[in-house]
């Protein structure tokens, strides 16, 4: 990730550009929470909203202005026109911050997984905000509107990789009536992820998991005597890296299967994204799965 991209404005600009290609994203998955925040989802009860809900008889306390005179003129009763109460859905975005997310290939010059994850999450957040949904980073208060977009831009751009490999969403951050969007490479088998997924499904929330991988991690293009290391201190020595390629791919498929199983158990959807593909591909996938009814 170049410094220009790291800058807040650069990230925002690229995210806006990516989001501009897609229509506003109205969340279709998950429950609608009974919050006071206005939004686009009807609660099937009277309240603040745009759509007509019912005429009811006026009672003491209704102001004269509240009475729908056109309907009342048809009889002796005075009616008040109620609208359907509409609230927003809430999406919580989580980015993995493990040290591996900073991987940008052996040359170290390409885009990092973390950079792609930031771009995707901010684009997604902008799409949601444009649809009036409430968006937040997991564990923080949700909000909507231009102010929240600015806040999220700052929050996402400040996310930096940790100096160890493991990172997982916190179980304590799980809330009901939310759609969680988890973006990570999910390479490390972390029990905290399972706990989180179970807790989310327990409180009735649902979500999406997107695995971002670098082409190196997909293709394993190494040969010869290599000592593999991670920043967190994991190590593997081999004399013949090329000979391990098949075994590595098998392990990777195994891991994806396990992740998909865990996701579907918790009512989540699991998808993968290769850093070699354009970001719009992943964004379109996310848009599709989140807006599908």
């Amino acid at each position: 990730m170049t410094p220009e991209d790291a800058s807040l404005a650069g990230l925002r600009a690229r995210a806006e550009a990516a989001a501009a290609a897609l229509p506003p994203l109205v969340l279709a998955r998950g429950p609608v929470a009974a919050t006071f925040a206005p939004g686009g989802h009807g609660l099937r009860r009277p309240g603040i909203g745009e759509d007509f809900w019912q005429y009811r008889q006026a009672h003491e306390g209704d102001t004269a202005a509240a009475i729908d005179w056109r309907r009342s003129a048809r009889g002796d009763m005075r009616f008040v026109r109620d609208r359907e109460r509409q609230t927003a859905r809430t999406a919580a975005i989580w980015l993995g911050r493990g040290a591996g997310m900073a991987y940008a290939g052996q040359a170290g010059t390409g885009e990092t997984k973390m950079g792609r994850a930031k771009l995707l999450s901010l684009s997604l957040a902008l799409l949601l905000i444009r649809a009036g949904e409430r968006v937040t980073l997991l564990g923080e208060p949700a909000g909507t509107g231009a102010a929240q977009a600015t806040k999220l831009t700052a929050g996402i751009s400040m996310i930096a990789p940790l100096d160890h490999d493991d990172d997982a969403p916190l179980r304590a951050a799980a809330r009901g009536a939310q759609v969680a969007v988890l973006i990570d490479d999910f390479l490390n088998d972390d029990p905290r992820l399972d706990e989180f997924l179970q807790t989310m499904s327990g409180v009735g929330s649902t979500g999406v998991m997107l695995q971002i991988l670098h082409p190196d991690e997909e293709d394993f293009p190494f040969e010869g005597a290599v000592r593999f290391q991670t920043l967190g201190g994991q190590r593997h020595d081999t004399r013949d890296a090329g000979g391990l390629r098949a075994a590595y791919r098998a392990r990777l498929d195994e891991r994806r299967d396990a992740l998909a199983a865990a996701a579907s158990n918790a009512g989540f959807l699991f998808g993968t994204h290769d850093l070699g593909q354009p970001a719009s591909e992943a964004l379109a996938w996310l848009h599709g799965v989140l807006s599908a009814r």
Partner: protein
Amino acid sequence: MMMLGPIGFATPLILLALAVLPLLWWLLRALPPVPKRVRFPGTVLLKGLVDANPVARRTPWWLLLLRIAAVAAAILAFAGPVWRPAPAPEPGDALVIVMDAGATAGPGWRAAQTRALRAADTALGDGAPVALLLADGRSEGALPFLADDAIAAALRAASPQAWPGAYPDAPDTILANAPEGGLRTLWLSDGLDHPGRSAWLSALLARGPVDVVPPVSPAYSLRMVRDGTQPELELQSTAPEARAVLALGPDPQGIPRELARLEPSEGRSAFGVTSWPVPVDLPPELLGRVTRFQIDGIESASAVVLGDDRLRRPVVALIGQGQATSERQALLSPAHFLRSALERSARVIEAGLNDAIAAKPDVIVLMDRSGLDADGALTDWVAEGGLLIRFAGPRMAADPGLAEEPLLPVRLRPGGRDMGGVLSWGEPRPVAPFAADGPFAGLAIPPDVTIRAQLMAEPSPDLPSRSIAVLSDGTPLVTRADSGDGQVVLFHSTANADWSSLPISGLFVQMLERLVAGAGRATAEPQGQPQGGSWTATDVLSGFGRLIEAPDAVPVAAEVLADGAAPDLPAGIYASGERVMALNAGAPLALAGWAGATVESARPSGIPLAGWLLIAAAAVLIADLAGSAALRGGRRSGRVTASLLVVASMLVLLPTAPRAQVPFGDNGPADQPVPELLAPFEVPQDDPTGADDAQADPDGGAAAEEPRAEVDPDLARAASEFAMGYVLTGNAELDELSRAGLTGLSLTLYSRTTVEPTPPVAIDLETADLTLMTFLYWPIGPDQPIPSADAYLRLNRFLRGGGMILFDTRDADLAGSAADASDDLRRLAGPLDMPPLQEVPQDHVLTRSFYLLEEMPGRFADGDVWVAATSTEAGTVNDGVSPVVIGGNSWAEAWAIDDRGLPLFAVGAGMDGERQREMAHRFGVNLIMYVLTGNYKSDQIHVPALLERLRQEGQP
């Protein structure tokens, strides 16, 4: 020592270690190379995977070869290889070491000594007895052949002598103790022939092989072939390259220095020896101070020519007609003119006639004096070879007995002659051109030299021959006659400008120089040969040409001395009474021939190769590092390779690299970032190509450009806007401290007074033009070198011209309570024109020139401060302002501020300390006020009293 072709090994056993190289080969091949390191997040997925078919990677052959080569080079190096080592001496039954130990042996002595010690060690190790013959001309009977360490001790104690080398007579007698059988000889020659050498060579060749070791450096010899006012030296050498000759002697301050550097002229070679004449073309006053000539860079007794009476300037005794009583007369008296004319070419003494004769001068000058005794001591002195120069004058003209006056070259008519006076018809007469064969031949006569009055000579047949200068009408101006061995010269005019304008012209100086230069030699001993008496050495030369005090001087007869330096009569300075004579060891050189002997090549034997091999091993190892790093590959390792290479090459180069200089600030304040607080001190830079030049007149424009380029911009600033200066001591820390201190004081002055100094100027005493400075701060450090004589001349001029130096010994008077208690201060300030000093009195101007001060603390509070004593006599310099202030209170440390304007050093403790710092600043303000305003402030002291008096006078 084992020989492999041209290479010898000192410790060949170590070569056995080469046998382990194949083992190393196998070992290195077995070790795998270091794997490539890859940072990869997917490592976790690899956990537990096993290589399906492990590939055995081996070290590449070229890396192996590099490592083997490095180890081999190291093993070879430790075996002590030597390229073409000195051939081992063949064992013989006995060894004689002959060392040339004369005056010419100095340059190569150390090498010869080492070589002799090595040979003696080897021979003693073989059990052969060794004898040592030092060819310094002294024979001590039969040589003892010893087989113990006494030989080594004698070799170490031996040194060359300061007389020409020679071999003792009768080699057979001296070699009487030689054991039966073969006798080897090691002859450490200085390359020159000495008396008795051929006899010894044949005697030694008859007994066995003779190895001759020529000297490592060629022999040089210097001797004086002509003395007098234009001496000439001759430089001889066995080498074809000439060397410069240094003239050494005390400078005007008495400090020994190199006075001149003489370049030899064209040389000529004969029989392997090249001779260069070295004309000593020095001004007389410089020549008079030369104590010795020395070949540059040659440490040998034969390379030194000591100076003595023959080099010194002639002594001229001025005998006036009484003391001048008034200032006006002092400057118009004949003595003043003569003194000014002679001080360059002669040593002038002024005394009464009897005292002057006792001082044995070369020339006696009598000014307008008559009535001399015809048989007196002066007559005898002239008869013994003295030169008497007399000047006419009104007193002589009025003497009625002038016709019978003795000691005159011609008979004079009483009365004299006036030309061009108010009542005379003639014009003042110019001087006629000098005779081509006279003593003044070739001197140019300025047209404005005219003679208004002269003493007339009685006409006589020999008058024209005795006249050496005549006027345009043929009357004599200067006459000369021999008297005994000496001469009498008469100037028919006065030595001052009363009778003629000759004494105020340069011609007068040249005429006197001609006369005196010719005369000084007349009294010297012919050819410098000592005459009678016994002479005692005061200082003698060592064999390396250094002058040392004569250890136990035995008087020698003059006849012995006349033969030159000889065994037990070293070159040096010999004195007999007042007479001083130099005995020199330089003698003509003659190249030695070695028929029948084996001459070693002059090149130092054997080149040790160990060092080069170790360097090669290190280089190979560095290449190995680079190669290994390259094997690991990748971008990161490339950078590692580069840094490894840099580090390794630095390690290799470290011993030869010049010592890195520690940067500590900058000497030039102009280079310093100007702190914000000092922003008003910033000086607008002059534009050298500004409008000023355009307006300058076209003629002077180019000339005005030149000096501007040379002036130090700092000094120019100090001249146009006031700036204080500090003396660079050579100690960077101390200089920085001075700078910070003066910067602090400048700031104080700027904020409190109308004195607005610019940043302080660093003054290098050797180069800076002090005329532009007003005030110098001179901290006395322990290591400061003594400035040159020129620098002291400039400093004295600076002090006389109104400058002030604040000497700060910075020792809180720990060295003592006197003004010059510090050694360093005495050393550095000694050559200055110091007035008498006193402690600052209570009512000194310094205590009230701006602030009223009780004391003058710096960082230390209690030290005394010294200024020039207020003298009562008139004519004190600088209006009575003290040119120096001396103290030890370390003022600069109290004044010093850093770039932010905060004090650099703690002063005292707490508020008292701050008070002391304030007082130190006030002292500084007072000091600068004192420097800049002089005694103006002391006048102000009386203003109230003056006003009071005016009031009283106005009332009635």
